[in-house]
């Protein structure tokens, strides 16, 4: 494979402008102390921050086609946004609504009923969530039947106006996605490990499902592809979070003095920071590769492979970076006031979200012909 086939992995000027705009909003509306307050039930930081991102910058419609009122941008642009949102552990439903829900509704299998909803999402007027456990990987979906029921640990539902509920048809022939207004369902917020992406248990009964329009029919492949894209783009969130961990910890260890020296001069610590830097660089490259591959006209298997590779690697590295951030800051990072725990809780949740490493490895093994042991 010649290098001329490789996508350009360096940011364009447009990427840098987008990054600067998102950073400016986060600096103005994403104060870490206010984000920490989400853990005490004070979510007053969310609305102004989301309005500035979704409406003022128009990011809610970033991935939505222009015919539905969006920008028709690609995964590369969404990756730039998520890198910055990840670095700030921003408590907004961009990934759940503006990436996952809009991708499902933008499917070629979408019905006419999807169009109005997509336009409302693109405009930032409404927020949607896909009703699956947030741990669901692209190859591990289990869905409600037409009888309805409860789905536990759904991300984005707390913020949602509309619930996109995958429903298996009674004869087992396929999956439809139905759009249920949040008033017609029961959404119970639950204490979550990561309260910056709070989870809810969602109950939808048979009557509500029957009354809800089908927005995507025969949606199994749509859902798998959308979950794969979301995991590819969550890798950018993880890479951004990793970058924040390295930058913050390096900065702290350049200042913090013990034994009459700055801690960053001790080789045992320097080497751990060097390793983290190397991991952060690789996470950023892998996430950019996955986004660039999803943006182009690559073979679908190549897109799935790049997503699974990035999801597996970035999930692991973000957790390592956050755990090292806590250990290398030591006591101060165990306090409620210090933002290290925001990163730790997000990183650990992200590692499980949209499929664990084991899920992603199964996909990789299948795509690159590394079969497991022969059964029996």
């Amino acid at each position, binding site marked *: 494979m010649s290098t001329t086939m490789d996508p350009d992995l360096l940011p364009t000027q447009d990427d840098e402008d987008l990054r600067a705009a998102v950073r400016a909003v986060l600096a103005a509306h994403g104060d870490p102390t206010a984000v920490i307050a989400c853990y005490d039930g004070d979510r007053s930081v969310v609305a102004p921050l989301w309005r500035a991102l979704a409406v003022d910058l128009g990011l809610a419609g970033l991935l939505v086609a222009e015919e539905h009122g969006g920008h028709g941008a690609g995964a590369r642009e969404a990756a730039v946004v998520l890198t910055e949102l990840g670095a700030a552990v921003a408590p907004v439903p961009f990934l759940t609504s503006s990436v996952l829900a809009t991708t499902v509704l933008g499917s070629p299998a979408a019905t006419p009923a999807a169009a109005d909803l997509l336009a409302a999402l693109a405009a930032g007027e409404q927020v949607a969530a896909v009703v699956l456990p947030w741990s669901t990987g692209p190859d591990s979906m289990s869905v409600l039947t037409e009888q309805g029921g409860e789905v536990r640990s759904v991300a984005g539902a707390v913020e949602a106006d509309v619930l996109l509920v995958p429903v298996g048809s009674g004869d087992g022939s396929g999956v439809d996605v139905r759009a249920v207004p949040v008033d017609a369902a029961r959404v119970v917020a639950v204490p979550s490990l990561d309260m910056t992406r709070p989870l809810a248990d969602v109950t939808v009964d048979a009557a509500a499902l029957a009354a809800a329009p089908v927005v995507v029919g025969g949606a199994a492949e749509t859902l798998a592809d959308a979950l794969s894209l979301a995991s590819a783009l969550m890798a950018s969130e993880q890479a951004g979070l990793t970058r924040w961990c390295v930058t913050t910890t390096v900065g702290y260890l350049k200042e913090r003095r013990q034994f009459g020296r700055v801690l960053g001069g001790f080789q045992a610590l320097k080497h751990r*920071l060097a390793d983290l830097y190397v991991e952060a660089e690789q996470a950023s490259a892998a996430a950019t590769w996955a986004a660039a591959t999803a943006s182009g006209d690559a073979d679908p298997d190549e897109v799935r492979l790049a997503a699974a590779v990035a999801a597996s690697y970035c999930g692991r590295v973000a957790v390592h970076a956050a755990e090292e951030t806590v250990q290398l800051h030591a006591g101060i990072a165990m306090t409620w006031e210090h933002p290290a725990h925001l990163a730790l809780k997000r990183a650990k949740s992200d590692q499980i979200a949209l499929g664990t490493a084991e899920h992603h490895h199964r996909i990789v*093994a299948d795509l690159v012909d590394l079969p497991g042991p022969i059964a029996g």
Partner: protein
Amino acid sequence: MSAELRERVATLLAEHDPAATDRLDFLRARYDAGLAWVWFPEGLGGLGLARADQGIVDALLAEAGAPSNHPERNGIGLGMAAPTILRFGTEEQKQRFLRPLWTGEEIWCQLFSEPGAGSDLAGLATRAVPDGDGWMVNGQKVWTSGAHNARLAILVARTDPDAPKHRGLTYFLCDMTDPGVDVRPLRQITGEAEFNEVFLNDVRIPDSQRLGDVGQGWLVAAATLDNERVAIGGAAAPRESGMIAKVAQTWREQPERRTAGLHERLVEAWVDAEVARVTGIRLRQKLAQGQPGPEGSAMKLVFAGLAQRLSGMELELLAEDGLRYSDWTMVRPDRVDFTGRDAGYRYLRAKGNSIEGGTSEILRNVIAERVLGLPGEHRVDKDVPWKEIPR
């Protein structure tokens, strides 16, 4: 540009039919046509183009059956000596050395490390003293790959023992056929002698073969080492190549050996190898215009870790066959092949990957200090005259 470049290649092929031209004559003509390394300046085998344009030339010439300069036999010459000569050499030195280096007429080796100067390269003790219009060199070098085939060497020697260690060094281009050069094989843990010890006894080097100023040797050597780390860690490679290819091949060919535990480790390592490859692609895109910086150290660190992890895993996968070894007979190979021979050889040879070209510990210092800006190590010997350092 690509059309012009194609035209140039066509002219070379028209004037020097590969089938009817002596191999060396062809390679020299290719160099003189600026098609050796197109990113080098005109008149020195290049055309001042982007590195990426070389691919077009190589593909066209390969298609036409043109002879190769066998870069694998002159890795140190092409990867380290050439860029350093290009950057620090005089016009005469560039004209004299680069052409036969590229054609492979003159193989190069590297006389840097010494028994008493490994990671602490700047502490080296080989002395060069003024002698008429040149220098007289005495000392002992070690870990010199290819010294037994080399015509020339890049050499760092101490010219001022009264100066602090980094400031008393000078960089030379040394003739390996000098009668004072004594090359002895150094046998390694693999059983082979890929490296040598080189003893330098009253070796004469004319001052015209000094590269850079007297006392500037550390700066020149640092540039060489950055190139070395890029050469080791940053080479372009297709997906699933190198050590992961070996293990994956064994996995596919011997299904009866697969276990669930090894499967998880293998796929995770496959992911890590792919991430390293993609990171290398991005690094090369960044470096396309500039000099290699300390970022190359990161890739070398990753490469060494992966090679060791994978080669160890391969032995476990092979189980009872992993207990065997192909051949302990001492041989002197004419090239370095990290993925050659059998799994046992690969496991042992990979142990060198985190030592050669800067240990992984030194590379972590380089990243921490030069990339992250953390404080340097406590250096008791830094501002002391070299001759007063305890040893």
